[in-house]
């Protein structure tokens, strides 16, 4: 591997969070973005082709070294690391709505879900998956929520645009049902 790829590998190994492209550039100020990208490709190929237990993943606007899925069970059985807990269906629903409609207030989320979401918003905020991104105009200036970079990270998304657009979903909303 070229020295730049080794440098990036070392940095990615040292970090527990995905490293964004601009921070990778800061490691090697002389390297152009194209050189960084090609070094990352080299590293990815190195992991994939030569057969490694880890892989290079592009997640949450950055790059991260992750263990391969096939070894998860063994690692967990040996209690070396534990998978984070799954979110409840209610939390996922709330998160899905916020991801698509952000910035969005509590009332609008409740309108779509048909249930109160106050405590779920709080716990999602505690888990740093959502955050307050502003206040709406109008009565009481309610808080508006949006998703965080940790959300992208935990759902292995490079960016929000990676989620299908609303009109690409199987059930695209029709403007209004045909009158009978």
């Amino acid at each position, binding site marked *: 591997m070229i020295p730049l790829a080794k440098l990036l590998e070392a940095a990615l190994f040292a970090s527990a969070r995905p490293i964004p492209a601009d921070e990778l550039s800061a490691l090697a100020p002389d390297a152009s973005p194209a050189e960084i990208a090609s070094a990352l490709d080299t590293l990815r190929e190195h992991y994939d082709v030569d057969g490694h237990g880890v892989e290079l993943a592009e997640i949450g606007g950055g790059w991260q070294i992750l263990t391969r*899925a096939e070894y998860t069970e063994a690692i967990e059985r040996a209690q070396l*690391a534990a*998978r984070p807990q799954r979110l409840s*269906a209610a939390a996922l*629903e709330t998160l899905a709505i916020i991801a698509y409609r952000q910035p969005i207030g509590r009332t609008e989320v409740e309108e779509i*879900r*048909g249930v109160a979401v106050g405590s779920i918003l709080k716990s999602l905020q505690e888990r740093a998956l959502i955050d307050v991104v502003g206040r709406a105009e109008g009565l009481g200036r309610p808080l508006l929520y949006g998703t965080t970079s940790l959300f992208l990270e935990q759902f*292995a998304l490079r960016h929000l645009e990676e989620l299908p657009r609303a009109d690409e979903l199987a*059930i695209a909303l029709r403007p209004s049902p045909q009158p009978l």
Partner: protein
Amino acid sequence: MSMETTLEETSSADSAAAGVDESEVPRVAEPEPEPVAPVGFLVDLPAFAGPLDLLLSLIRDEKVDIYDIPIARIAKQFLLRIRVLQLNDAAEYLELAARLLRIKAQMLLPRHGEAETWEDPRAELVRRLLEYQQMREVVDILERRGDERRSRFARAYLPEAGEMALAPLALSLGELLTAVDRILRVTKEPTVHTVVARTLDVAGAISMVRRLIATRRNARWGELVARDAEPWQILSMLLALLELAKQGELRLAQPRPFASVEIEHDSTGEVA
């Protein structure tokens, strides 16, 4: 999830709750009862994330067209299910049940006027259901991607938020001793201050104030104390003024915080 499973969960929660009630009675070799949610308000059943979820699964089970919901049948089924699932004291489920019955009533009303102007009372419900179903689709995507990510581990090392861990010390005994020696040398000579007591001249200050207010009614602090006055002079004057004010020879006033103190000749005090 099937309804049978849900019912099982409900009944097991009931029996566990009953176990909690008997906890006063000493038990022999029995594990602690699992903590359970309060009985009678089992809303957050894992099977259904809310009333719309329940309604959607009903529509799916009954195999009816979402754009042409047989509202009377679905409303009846919905009420039946919330009773079976003990959801009938959850306001959100009741609210949707009420809405269904209201739509059912509206459907029964005779239609006046042209067919084009008639608005289907189910339209709003259908819109909400579709919106909800669309969101469920996103939930499926998130669930899949979340599982994908969860099945791969990242490096576990996480620095404390906001601060990097300190690097381990690399230090030889010689270096340590040199450092100690340096500190001892720097602090060898303690600086000793000689404190000289200065007597205050309160009596002098009193006679000075008296001289001044004998000729005029008002004076200001700035006129009594020179700008370059020594601390002992300032203190003497302050004590003199307080003393004279106590004796009633003058009045002190300060119109606002940090303003110059105004001294006023108190004629009443003089008379007394």
